[in-house]
């Protein structure tokens, strides 16, 4: 189980990087970056998990019940917010790149001077 739990974030990181490196389209590249970023969320939640424990919300369970780590869950919220803002900024840049150059292919951008 440990192998799978820690293997998934490694896989997400590497496969997302593969997407970024081989991408032929800026939008695909931005989504690949989101995949890379998802690996940190999965890793955080993996690290904080305790077998047999409940979620750290004591609304309907006794306060003495073992619960998973709340700190990493709070961090994964930060992760989600930062990920969304990075995507929004990159997408805005991609819109302007397409307007100026007429292409979203990173390789074509390098060959083509700004109009």
């Amino acid at each position, binding site marked *: 189980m440990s192998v799978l739990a820690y293997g998934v974030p490694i896989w997400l990181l590497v496969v997302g*990087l593969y997407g970024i490196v081989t991408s032929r389209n800026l939008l695909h590249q931005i989504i690949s970056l989101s995949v890379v970023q998802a690996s940190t969320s999965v890793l955080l939640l993996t690290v904080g998990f305790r077998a047999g424990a409940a979620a750290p919300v004591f609304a309907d369970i006794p306060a003495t019940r073992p619960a998973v780590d709340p700190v990493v869950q709070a961090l994964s919220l930060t992760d989600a917010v930062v990920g969304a803002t990075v995507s929004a900024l990159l997408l805005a840049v991609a819109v302007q790149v397409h307007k100026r150059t007429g292409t979203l292919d990173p390789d074509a951008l390098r060959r083509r001077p700004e109009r």
Partner: protein
Amino acid sequence: MTPRVRRVVFLVAAGALAGVLAWGFGGLPRFGTFDGAYGQILNHVAVPQRHITDVVAAVNFDYRGFDTLGEEFIFFAAVLGVALILRTQRGEHAGHLADHATGRAVPPTSDAVRVLGLLLTPPAVLFSIYVVTHGHLTPGGGFQGGVILATGVLLIYLAGEFDDLHGLYTEPALERGAAVGVAGYVAIGLLGMAAGTAFLDNVLPLGRLGSIFSAGTVPLINLSVGLEIAAGLVLLLTNFLHQTIVIRPVVGRSA
């Protein structure tokens, strides 16, 4: 570098990276046995100390409230950045409102999408209010609820026309909403200093555990974050929609 060479170089480097990560993760506690002291202490003390049932919210908006303030400013700065990048550029002007796509006709909205959008919008808005106001009791809070509220606005656009959104809000109102949300968080932090303790200290009455008026400053911070996120996201959405619906190149110039 040809794509083929690039791929080979990447695969070698990625293999090494994955190997080092696997080696490092091998030294972490086995899955399901984590026993970090900080989290476990919080799980025990947060409920009696702050009269809050969602310990994740207690970490975000109370014990580590200062970090979340930074996070809120990251979001605010990103919204400003997108508005700046997507402003009307030289050689562009604001045209009449019309959906526009390069090289193809825009199909009209189908009846199914219209009906579904109308049916889903009220529950989305109601649910967002619930998620924001109960953030200190159950999973949720200002960030999550704000995103759901912005989804409600997006549903109205999907079910109708861009014009329909203009009756709902104006851009200056959204900008003020986002600014008031951020400033509200800081103001709640200053309450602690006014009371003679630390910035963002939870100085308000804690109330009865499990009640909606409990946990001191946390529900107020959730409200201000909810306002900031909802207004900021709708502003983001509006900026992106403007690119396809409003902003046009000036005729006679290449874009």
